[in-house]
């Protein structure tokens, strides 16, 4: 009985093993075939259709290169790229968020890029800086994401303000006046608690470095950041901003159209959304303005996305050619036309197409004052801690002092491995 049962089972297993080995051999045979491997290109978010168009143009120019595009949603992109790196499955060319560039540089996953002096000059300097690490350009800026004020002009003028705010105190006064004039579900400002951008922008505006010069320790208890954090928390304290995260913003556009929101700190992707989702009668009623600063028009973030060439790519020259093509002024203009993504090159902004749009004027002015976040690979994690502690403080779960102390502690711990790797540069220890 036992004999009869074992034999067929064994035979089955052996058969499977043979099939499995044959499969492996077949696979190896395929992958060792040289030439004509297509260039893989990972694009993030909704740029897909426009990119297909651009890639077609690129392939017409260089007929010997075949490009395969893969679209990845932003929400999964960071994980997916890191997983691809861990699994040695990186694409030849990929899009990265500018704030991720230091991370991929630390991994050695991206190839440094060269730019001529004239090309360098054409880029907005803050944007070029945000994609560079240790002075080397690691990814080609592709489009810009900076934050500024979207506001309702009619609400402001009904309260007696004819121009948007340029300083924090003006901004505060306008919001308080509007809060007092409007009852019900009105909120003067929408600044989702789930975003790290606003507290960081306010901090950088008041001169906070966030980390020390070498990026070894947190500096969130510095007087400059403390002042900005206090301003930020007061927005919620005084009932000016809505206490809510991204998940609650389900009726944002209806609320903006209905006059229940006066200010919204957000980025260029909302230009298109506002055009699409707000009634045409509001065109010209909503407007954009440069971020107000502590004493005058303030800086904002040099965010955006860039194109990187993978250092494990076997066809770097073709990959570089693709990146170079994508960053040409003509390509950037095509991208803007199709998606509204703002070009990182000054020359493209002098195109009549961009000059004609009133809401873009504030963006153009803002781009002269944009700053990069600290260039440590741990930045995304640090940003998530900023969100956590800012939200807890805004919700009265801890005081501002406790939040900043806790934030510095957590950030110091996040940077401990970096300190170990940079032991020489961090020797001074923790200065007051």
């Amino acid at each position, binding site marked *: 009985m036992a004999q009869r049962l074992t034999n067929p*089972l064994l035979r089955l297993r052996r058969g499977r093993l043979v099939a499995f080995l044959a499969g492996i051999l077949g696979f190896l045979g395929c992958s060792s075939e040289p030439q004509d491997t297509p260039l893989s290109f990972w694009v993030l978010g909704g740029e897909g259709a426009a990119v297909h168009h651009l890639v077609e143009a690129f392939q017409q120019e260089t007929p010997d290169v075949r490009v395969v595009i893969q679209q990845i949603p932003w929400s999964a992109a960071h994980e997916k790229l890191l997983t691809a790196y861990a699994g040695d499955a990186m694409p030849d060319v990929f899009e990265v968020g500018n704030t991720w560039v230091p*991370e991929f540089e630390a991994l050695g996953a991206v190839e440094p890029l060269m730019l001529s002096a004239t090309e360098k000059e054409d880029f907005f300097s803050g944007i070029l800086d945000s994609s560079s690490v240790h002075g080397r350009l690691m990814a080609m800026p592709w489009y810009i994401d900076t934050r500024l004020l979207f506001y309702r002009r009619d609400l402001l003028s009904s309260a007696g303000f004819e121009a948007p705010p340029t300083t924090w105190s003006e901004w505060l006064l306008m919001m308080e006046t509007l809060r007092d004039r409007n009852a019900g579900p009105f909120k003067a400002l929408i600044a989702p608690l789930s975003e790290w951008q606003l507290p960081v922008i306010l901090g950088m505006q008041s001169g906070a470095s966030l980390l020390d010069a070498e990026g070894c320790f947190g500096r969130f208890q510095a007087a400059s950041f403390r002042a900005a954090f206090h301003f930020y928390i007061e927005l919620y304290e005084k009932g000016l901003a809505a206490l809510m995260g991204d998940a609650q913003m389900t009726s944002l556009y209806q609320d903006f159209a209905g006059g229940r929101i006066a200010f919204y700190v957000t980025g260029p992707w909302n230009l298109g959304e506002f055009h699409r989702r707000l009634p045409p009668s509001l065109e010209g009623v909503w407007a954009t303005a440069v971020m107000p600063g502590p004493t005058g028009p303030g800086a904002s973030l040099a965010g955006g996305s860039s194109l990187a060439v993978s250092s494990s790519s076997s066809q770097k020259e073709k990959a570089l050619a693709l990146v170079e093509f994508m960053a040409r002024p003509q390509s950037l203009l095509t991208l803007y036309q199709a998606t509204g993504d703002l070009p990182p090159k000054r020359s493209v902004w002098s195109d009549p197409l961009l000059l004609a749009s009133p809401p873009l004027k504030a963006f153009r002015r803002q781009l002269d004052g944009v700053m990069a976040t600290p260039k440590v690979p741990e930045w995304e994690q640090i940003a998530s801690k900023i969100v956590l502690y800012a939200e807890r403080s805004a919700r009265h779960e801890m005081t501002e002092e406790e939040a900043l102390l806790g934030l510095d502690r957590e950030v110091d711990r996040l940077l401990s491995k970096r300190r170990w790797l940079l032991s020489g540069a961090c020797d001074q220890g923790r200065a007051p």
Partner: protein
Amino acid sequence: MILVRRPSAAFWLVFPAMLLIGVFFVLPIVASLLLSFTDFDLYALARWDHLRLIGLENYRHLLNDPLFFRALTNTFYFVALGAPLSVSASLLTALLINQRMVRGQGFFRTVFFLPVVTTLVAVAVVWRYLYHPRSGLLNYVLSLLGIEPIDWLGDPDWAMPSLIIMAVWKNFGFNMVNFIAGLKSIPRRLYEAAEVDGAGAFEQFRSITLPLLAPTFVFVGIVTLIGYFQLFAEPYVMTQGGPSGRTLSIALLMFEEGFRWWNLGYAAAISFVLFLIILSGTFIQMLVRRR
């Protein structure tokens, strides 16, 4: 004797399954235990010599990590409230459906089981509408009763209860089917005998139904406990752990540390603690049942 001399049929029948369990279950557990003694992270991913053996440092840090304690409290809150609710909801519906006078038992079984087989993401989209603070159905019903609207997912105190309500609604059908199976296996003659002896409905439930359902209770209890401790998809889809970390679960924290930040050493330590919690929970249940 045959077993000792040479592998029997039983051995060969069990062997493939044991091999699979060993490779896909025991090995990963051992590997993650070893991983939890290292500081495997992004830097180690880039270069192997950046990997350090740090002993119990990850576990020491767990004790000082405010986020871990929040996740721990949230998860226990979810289990303590959600598991009994889910089990009692399934028992109640099972008892109702199993009544002999109920027509279309199969229909009700299917209807109540449907949420279990629906994808959570689709369910979450619908529930997000139900929970919407201004235009949601739940707040509309509350307003009819003259109750102030609740910001279900946005209020830190309401977010977890909201997830619990949704999770119970989604999962009770599974246990209900188990309870129905348990109820069907109780011989009718016991109830008939009890009726002859003059026992009322409640007396019958207490003396016949409950004791004879004990094995089902053990199974349902353990499966629910294990499932609820691994709370992940609900907060991941509905709240991303917010507001201010009040729906962050241990499994979600582990996922974020491991796959968002790539701190695999630390994530392994978190997962091992979760493993120990579930293991001890299961043991306690089995001990209680054995008494």
